[in-house]
């Protein structure tokens, strides 16, 4: 498996709390919990950045939605040409 081993200093109470989640079967082990928590934090930061960048966008009307769906359809058609060679 291609992964890094990072040593993380956790407060004892947080470490004990993670152990509780593992014992309860919510996560298979401590690594799984930490991976989940890190991904969640990254996702939260990125979503915040995305939200800030789109703060001034005007609401889409029906025509905007249709245009967007057509743009996606165009990309989808092009993509399919590439994928079709691989899957058939």
């Amino acid at each position, binding site marked *: 498996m291609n992964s890094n081993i990072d040593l993380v200093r956790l407060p004892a109470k947080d470490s004990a709390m993670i152990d509780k989640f593992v014992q309860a079967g919510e996560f298979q082990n401590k690594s799984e919990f930490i991976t989940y928590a890190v991904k*969640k934090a990254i996702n939260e930061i990125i979503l915040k950045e995305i939200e800030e960048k789109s703060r001034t966008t005007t609401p889409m009307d029906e025509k905007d939605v249709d245009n967007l769906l057509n743009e996606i359809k165009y990309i989808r058609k092009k993509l399919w040409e590439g994928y079709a060679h*691989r899957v058939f």
Partner: protein
Amino acid sequence: MLTAYFDTNVFIIGTLQPESNSRLILREIKKGNFKVILSDYLIDEILDWFKINRGKDFASMMRLFIISLPSSEMINDFEWSLFIDDWQGFVADIDDLPHICSYFAGEAEYFVTANRRLTEMKIKDHVNFMSAKEFIEKVSGYDGIDTVNGI
């Protein structure tokens, strides 16, 4: 855990439109309350759209956002292609098929999209299609936002 497949338009609209049900879905996803089924085809579509319309930097940010989704499962072409023969006859546009097949391969319970053409195809009898607004109201359990097509 509840499992859902979100079409490309949900990710794009959720990113661009602060006052949308798709944005509410992105916030729900962030909480990790349900499993998101992703596919290589879906990610390629999203990133291509952002590269064309918002530039490479924004597309990179979207890539990071997608790969950091806390509860997700990736369906690759060699997995979704196993379902093509079963569902090919139910979809009018063959280029929609990878999304439908990924939904089945990931055993998703909901397929959220603003694409009404897709939801009117024969496949509608087998796929639990809903708009972003319906998903927020029926699945997340709170009031959605009144928008065009429930986006």
